[in-house]
C-alpha cells in the first residue's frame, strides 16, 4: 500500500462547485469551464500515488494547480470530488478532531513565503508545532533548539524572523516542520523566493535530511532543474491536468507530450542524466583467468573486446590485439588480469557531464560499475553524442519552421 494515494481528485472553485462538477465531462478543460460556468477547474481528475520515503516533486507553471493539489494532502483545501488516502484512510472523511491530529502528528509543511510568526522569536517559531500540540514549554524549546542547530542556525534563537535573511528564514521554516517529527513534509515552492546559491544549498540540505531521516517529502516547484535535482519521481501538471508521472530520466527521455517536451528542451541533459540511462550490456564478460582462455572466449563470442570480471568485480577492459601480443610474449598461461586495462571506469550514478572526460580518454565503450565494484554495463560514446545532440536538432528544425 502506498503512503499517500490520490484518487480521481477534482477541485472546482466558484459559487457552486457541485453544480459545475455535473457539467464536467471527459474532455472538459479549464478555459471551457471558465467560459461556460464561470467556475475555475483547479484540478481535473487527478490520480497518483506517493510512496513512503521518496521525494515526490509536483511540477507545473503558475496556475497549473500544483499548490492547490498539495493542500489537499493536509486538507487545507477540500476537494469537490475524489479522495485522498493516507495509509489507506480517506482523509476527506475525517472529523475536525482527527484532521487536527493528522496535521499535528503526520504532516508538516514548509511555505514559499515562510509563514513564520513575526511576533515569536526564531526558537519559539521552531517550537510552534509542538506548542500547538500542547507540549510543555521547556520540553518544546529544548527540542526546537536541537532542530535549529541541525539546520545550522545555532545562536539565532532569540532573534525575530524579520532580522534574518530569506535563506535563514526558510531554514527556520524547515526546522519548524522537522520539529513536529511527522513522517510527511509538504514543501510548497519552498525555495522559489530564494537566490540561486542559497537555493541549491537548501536543496542539498533537503536531500541530506531525507537520506538520514527517511521522511516522505512532497515538493512543489515550477523549476524543472530543481525538480530533476531533488526528485525520486516527478508529476507534471498543466491547467489542472496530470500530464506525466515518472522518474527524472523518464521525463527527460520520454516526454509524454509536446508540453513536457518543450519543458525539458532547455534542460542541460549532460547534467541531468546519469550514465546508467545510456547503459548497454557489455559485449563480453571475460571470466577466463589465463590469456589463452580469454582469447578462446573472445573468439567464441566473435568480438574484439571483453570486460574482465574477477570474483564478481570488474577488473578492466581487454582487447584481442592486446591478448595476441601478450601470448606471443609470455605464452598462453599468463594471467588475464595482467593484460586488462583498468584505467577507465565510471560509477553508476555519475552525471554524463562528469563522465565525459573519462569517455573521451577511452578508445572503447567505458565500463560502468556499481557501488560494490560489479560490472553493471558499458556506455557507448556514440550514444552519448546522440542524446546530447537531440536538443540541438530540435532547435534547428524549429528554426527551419520559423
Amino acid at each position: 500500500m502506498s503512503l499517500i494515494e490520490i484518487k480521481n481528485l477534482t477541485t472546482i472553485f466558484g459559487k457552486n462547485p457541485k453544480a459545475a462538477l455535473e457539467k464536467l465531462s471527459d474532455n472538459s478543460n479549464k478555459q471551457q469551464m471558465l467560459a461556460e460556468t464561470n467556475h475555475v477547474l483547479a484540478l481535473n481528475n487527478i490520480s497518483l500515488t506517493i510512496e513512503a520515503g521518496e521525494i515526490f516533486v509536483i511540477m507545473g507553471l503558475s496556475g497549473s494547480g500544483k499548490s492547490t493539489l498539495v493542500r489537499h494532502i493536509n486538507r487545507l483545501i477540500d476537494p469537490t470530488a475524489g479522495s485522498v488516502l493516507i495509509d489507506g484512510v480517506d482523509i476527506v472523511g475525517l472529523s475536525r478532531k482527527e484532521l487536527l491530529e493528522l496535521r499535528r502528528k503526520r504532516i508538516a509543511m514548509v511555505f514559499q513565503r515562510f509563514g513564520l510568526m513575526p511576533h515569536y522569536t526564531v526558537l519559539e517559531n521552531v517550537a510552534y508545532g509542538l506548542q500547538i500540540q500542547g507540549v510543555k514549554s521547556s520540553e518544546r524549546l529544548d527540542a526546537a533548539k536541537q532542530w535549529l542547530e541541525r539546520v545550522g542556525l545555532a545562536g539565532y534563537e532569540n532573534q525575530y524572523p524579520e532580522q534574518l535573511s530569506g535563506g535563514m528564514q526558510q531554514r527556520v521554516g524547515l526546522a519548524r516542520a522537522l520539529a513536529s517529527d511527522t513522517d510527511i513534509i509538504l514543501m510548497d515552492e519552498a525555495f522559489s523566493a530564494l537566490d540561486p546559491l542559497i537555493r541549491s544549498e537548501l536543496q542539498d540540505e533537503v536531500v541530506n535530511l531525507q537520506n538520514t531521516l527517511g521522511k516522505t517529502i512532497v515538493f512543489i516547484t515550477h523549476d524543472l532543474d530543481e525538480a530533476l535535482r531533488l526528485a525520486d519521481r516527478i508529476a507534471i501538471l498543466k491547467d489542472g491536468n496530470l500530464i506525466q508521472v515518472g522518474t527524472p530520466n523518464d521525463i527527460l527521455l520520454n516526454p509524454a507530450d509536446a508540453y513536457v517536451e518543450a519543458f525539458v528542451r532547455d534542460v542541460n541533459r549532460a547534467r541531468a542524466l546519469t550514465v546508467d540511462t545510456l547503459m548497454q550490456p557489455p559485449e563480453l564478460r571475460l571470466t577466463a583467468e589465463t590469456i589463452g582462455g580469454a582469447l578462446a572466449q573472445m573468439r567464441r563470442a566473435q568480438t574484439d573486446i571483453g570486460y574482465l570480471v574477477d570474483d564478481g568485480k570488474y577488473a578492466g577492459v581487454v582487447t584481442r590485439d592486446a591478448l595476441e601480443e601478450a601470448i606471443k610474449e609470455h605464452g598462453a598461461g599468463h594471467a588475464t588480469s595482467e593484460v586488462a586495462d583498468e584505467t577507465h571506469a565510471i560509477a553508476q550514478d555519475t552525471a554524463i557531464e562528469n563522465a565525459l572526460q573519462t569517455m573521451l580518454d577511452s578508445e572503447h565503450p567505458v565500463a560502468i560499475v556499481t557501488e560494490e565494484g560489479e560490472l553493471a554495463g558499458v556506455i557507448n560514446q556514440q550514444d552519448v553524442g546522440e542524446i546530447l545532440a537531440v536538443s540541438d536538432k530540435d532547435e534547428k528544425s524549429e528554426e527551419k519552421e520559423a
Partner: protein
Amino acid sequence: MNIFPDFKSPIVDATNNAVNALVEGYGDTFNEISGSILSVLLLLENALRAVPPVVMIILIAALAYLASRKILFTVIVAISLWAIGALGMWEQSMQTLALVLVAVLLSVVVGLPIGIMSASSKVMRKITMPLLDLMQTIPSFVYLIPAAMLFGLGKVPALLATVIYAVPPLIRLTDLGIRNVDDSIVEASRAFGSTRWQILLGVQVPLSLPAIMQGINQTTMMALSMVVIASMIGARGVGETVLLGLQRNDSGLGLVGGITIVILAVLIDRITQSYGNRIQRHRSEGV
C-alpha cells in the same frame, strides 16, 4: 393629495409604550443593573480621588515614561497635569477620567468580540457595519432620553451613551486589523493543526494588535468628547464645568473647562499612541 402615509404616530406610540412598559415591568431589574455599574464606577472614581495629586502626577508621568521611554515627553505630561490642578479642575478631571476609563473598558469588552466576529463572518459584517453607522450618526439625545428613564439620571446612562458613541471605531479597526493579518501566516498556523481559538489568540489578535490599539485610542478620544453631553444628564466632571459656563453665560469658566478637556485628551492620546508605536517597533526592528 397626500402621498405620505402616517408612519410617525405608530413609531412614536410604539416606542413610548415599549419604554414605558420596560420602566414599569422591569424597573427593578434596570435599577439593579444600574446599581452594579454605578458601584464599579464609584469605586474607581473614589480611588482616583483618594490618591494625593502629587502621587497621581508621578504615577501618570511614570506611565508616560514606560509607554514612550522619552524624558521630555514625561516632563511635559507632568507639567500638563500640574496645570490641570492649577486651573482648579483636579477633582472634576478625576471624575471624568473614571468615567472615561470605565467606558473604554466596557467598549473593549463589547467591541473586541464583535470586531473579531465580523472579521470572520461576512453575514456578521453585513449586520454590524450599518449598525455602526447608525450608532455614530444618530444624535445621542435620542437614546439618552429612554436611557435616563430606565437607569435614572446620573452616571450610568451617561456611561451607556458614551459606550454607544465610542465603541464603533474599536469594532471597525479590530475587524480591519484581523482581516489584514497575512493569510500565509494564518495558513501556516492551520497547517500545523491549530484550532480556531489557537489561530485567533495566537496569531490573529497579536498580529492585529497595532490596529486594535489604534481602535482603543480612538474610542478613548471619542469617550472624552462625550463628557459635555454626559454632564447634561447629570454625570459630574469636567463636562459639568463647561455646562455651567454655558448656563451662567460665564465664558471664562467655559474656557477653563474646555482647556482641561483638551489637555486630558492630548495626554491620553499621546500616552496610548506611544505605547502602540512601541509594540509595533519591537515587531519590525531590524528591517
